[in-house]
């Protein structure tokens, strides 16, 4: 059995994700998304990836979700009123239970993960920077040695996204004017 803290945050994450998928109000969906992302960040903390947990809360639950909420309230995008879409709900439940059964089989009943050499208990943490450590320093070391080219590409991608967003929003305002 996993420990209580993991169970609590797993239940929080899955419940919030259900809220995101099932709610007809877009703002409620966004709140569920924020909760689910905080739950994922808590799981990062339980996995000793403190830097990634903080990054997840800052970037996702902070910047990205604020952007989402801003757009939702700007566009006023509630689903059209009317009968509850039972057909879509039934299809969704069928898809989810099929996928969930597949996940449980793959990771639990098939025994493939349990037979992995390091599957049962996490190995103890080390301070060797070549192995998994909790410090942000080991991130920096890898980012500027082994992953220098991907880091440059990621920076360029952010620049391209910035230029793209500016040109996208500029074009549509000119057409409106």
């Amino acid at each position, binding site marked *: 059995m*996993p*420990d209580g*803290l*993991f169970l609590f945050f*797993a239940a929080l*994450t*899955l419940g919030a*994700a259900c809220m*995101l*998928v099932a709610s007809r109000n*877009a703002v409620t*969906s*966004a709140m569920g998304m924020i909760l*689910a992302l905080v739950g*994922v960040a808590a*799981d*990062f903390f*339980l*996995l*000793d*990836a403190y*830097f*990634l947990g903080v990054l*997840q809360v800052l970037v*996702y639950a902070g910047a*990205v979700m604020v*952007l*989402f909420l801003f*757009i*939702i309230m*700007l*566009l006023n*995008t509630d*689903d059209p009123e009317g009968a509850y879409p039972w057909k879509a709900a039934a*299809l*969704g439940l069928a898809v*989810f239970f099929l*996928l*969930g059964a597949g*996940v449980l089989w793959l*990771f639990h009943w098939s025994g493939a*993960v349990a037979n992995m050499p*390091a*599957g049962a208990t*996490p190995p103890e943490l080390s301070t060797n920077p*070549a*192995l*998994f450590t909790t410090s942000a320093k080991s*991130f920096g070391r*890898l*980012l500027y040695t082994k*992953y220098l080219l991907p880091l440059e590409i*990621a920076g360029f*991608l952010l620049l391209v*996204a910035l230029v*793209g*967003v500016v040109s*996208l*929003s500029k074009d*549509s305002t000119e057409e409106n004017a």
Partner: protein
Amino acid sequence: MEHTSLAHHLILAGLLFALGLTGVLVRRNLLVVYMCLELMLAAATLALVAFSRFNRTMDGAVLVFFVITVAAAEVAVGLALIVALFRKRGSVQSDALTTLRD
């Protein structure tokens, strides 16, 4: 903590991914579909961090760093596209966007 095995984290990630995929398939509101896509990305990062921690390597965690970067860029561009779409068509419901079909 010492009793939480790799399989538990992977099951959580898989169920989260399944919920996200369900939302992408079922929902009609493009903004909610987009949030479900983000949920699938978060589930994938969860699996990456779990594998990284249990295999004692930093590489999976560094990949998560890049995934978060790309996801942030993707959200910015995607939301700009949705706003442009809303200005042109006045709706973000995917079943209202049938110009190519009609």
